[in-house]
């Protein structure tokens, strides 16, 4: 049935795979990494704050997200987000949320839990004396956090953050379960339409591999560079 390997089917579907699929995957990865990092930093600051309630809320959220499989979380949010939108905006009907927006919200909220752990480690790696010095200079909490603590924490944790972004890039393939056309979704649609599973799945594996591998090499390179400077 699948005797001849058909390169042609890959060539013919390249525009669809990359223009429709890969654009979606990369946009989703970049935006949700950014959103997750911002939200994760907030969560980390909450956990390290002096207010026990804030800390408990953040800890509960992070532990909940880290205990659940991403697939389940994707299902949850795909069906729940329109209702949340309705409650937030006070609209009389559930708010329309498209596939991309839904996936973006899901991954941002899910990844925030993982980024918050990274940022917490980063913040805790800053010597206490620096914070005290900041306060001694008359800076307030906001200033100490945004001018002294976070820039260094971000810098120290950059390789870890980028590694997590690579994991995120791979994880976005799970939107397949919602029939959304990301890179893998596009590949599987062609595979099923033309009955060319072997070609399309091997090609998809190759593309994911090359991108992740190249990216992780870059991160490693960056790591050695920053290590020397420090």
């Amino acid at each position, binding site marked *: 049935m699948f005797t001849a390997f058909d390169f042609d089917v890959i060539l013919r579907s390249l525009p669809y795979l990359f223009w429709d699929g890969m654009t979606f995957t990369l946009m989703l990865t970049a935006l949700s990494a950014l959103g997750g990092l911002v939200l994760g930093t907030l969560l980390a600051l909450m956990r390290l704050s002096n207010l026990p309630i804030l800390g408990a809320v953040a800890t509960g959220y992070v532990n909940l997200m880290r205990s659940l499989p991403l697939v389940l979380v994707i299902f949850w949010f795909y069906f729940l987000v329109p209702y949340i939108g*309705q409650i937030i905006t006070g609209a009389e009907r*559930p708010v329309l949320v498209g596939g991309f927006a839904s996936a973006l919200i899901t991954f941002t909220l899910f990844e925030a839990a993982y980024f918050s752990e990274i940022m917490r480690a980063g913040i805790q790696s800053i010597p206490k004396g620096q914070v005290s010095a900041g306060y001694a200079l008359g800076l307030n909490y906001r200033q100490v956090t945004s001018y002294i603590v976070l820039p260094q924490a971000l810098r120290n944790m950059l390789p870890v953050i980028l590694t997590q972004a690579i994991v995120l890039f791979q994880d976005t393939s799970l939107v397949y379960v919602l029939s959304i*056309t990301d890179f893998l979704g596009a590949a599987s649609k062609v595979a099923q339409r033309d009955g060319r599973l072997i070609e399309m799945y091997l090609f998809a594996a190759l593309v994911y591999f090359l991108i992740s591998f190249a990216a992780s090499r870059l991160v490693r390179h960056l790591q050695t560079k920053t290590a020397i400077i420090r």
Partner: protein
Amino acid sequence: MKRLATVMALMALPGLAAAQDLSGTLKKVKETGTITIGHRESSVPFSYIDDKAKVVGYSMDICMKVVDAIKAELKMDKVEVKLVPVTSSTRIPLIANGTIDLECGSTTNNVERQKQVAYTNTHFLTASAFVSKKASNLKKIDDLKGKTVVSTAGSTNIKQVVEANAARNLGMTVLPAKDHAEAFLLVELGRASAFVMDDILLASLIASSREPGLYEISADAFSLPEPYGIMLRKDDAPFKALVDKSTAALFRSAEGGQIYNKWFMSPIPPKGLNLNVPMSEKMKKIFANPTDSPDPAAY
């Protein structure tokens, strides 16, 4: 009963046209200028993606007529149609949570689902059967004893298989597949012995497969012919009345028959095959007297 429903629907309409205070989906369309339609990826010929990555099909054509009627009703020049791909398993929650306004695919209308969603007039009738490779010689439901059987997750069909499996003590392994194309592929690859689905969808899957001669559809059916309907949100009477009115008008007109013939009696994309399914007597009856009854016995 059918008559009564039609009459009531017609009576509800004049009030709607004049009303300033639109509600539900119509209000949403008026305010946002868009309507969101859920479509399928491999429900040939009802709603599927052709070789140019365009969404086409019999149900899609009917829905576009409905969109025209909505445009006329709301006196809008333009209504933007947004398309969202759905699967058998996501379509009902997505109607309920407002992601899509109309679901134009191959969705069976039944009493159970009407607790969550509403349906407009039936546009097709089909029974649940199974496809298998001729070589494996499976004709009756009982032949499936101990076999691995696939069906599409979230369909009425998978529920029927699961129930038959328990009731008849068949000991089948029932695999859920994401969509019809994937399910058929599992039979093609030999991962599953049979695929249980609506017979019209099976016929088109076989026709568009690489070697149609390899497969056959079972003689036994898991159900009576059941109605397909376009899905909309529950408890939105003005919207349902409008959709009911426009589909009823379409089915009664010559155009209804033309749309039927376009998808069932002529070559269709992507491969230009002709399904050659003439309109049955029952179908002619529901085109003459449109109904949204979920009861298979009513047809």
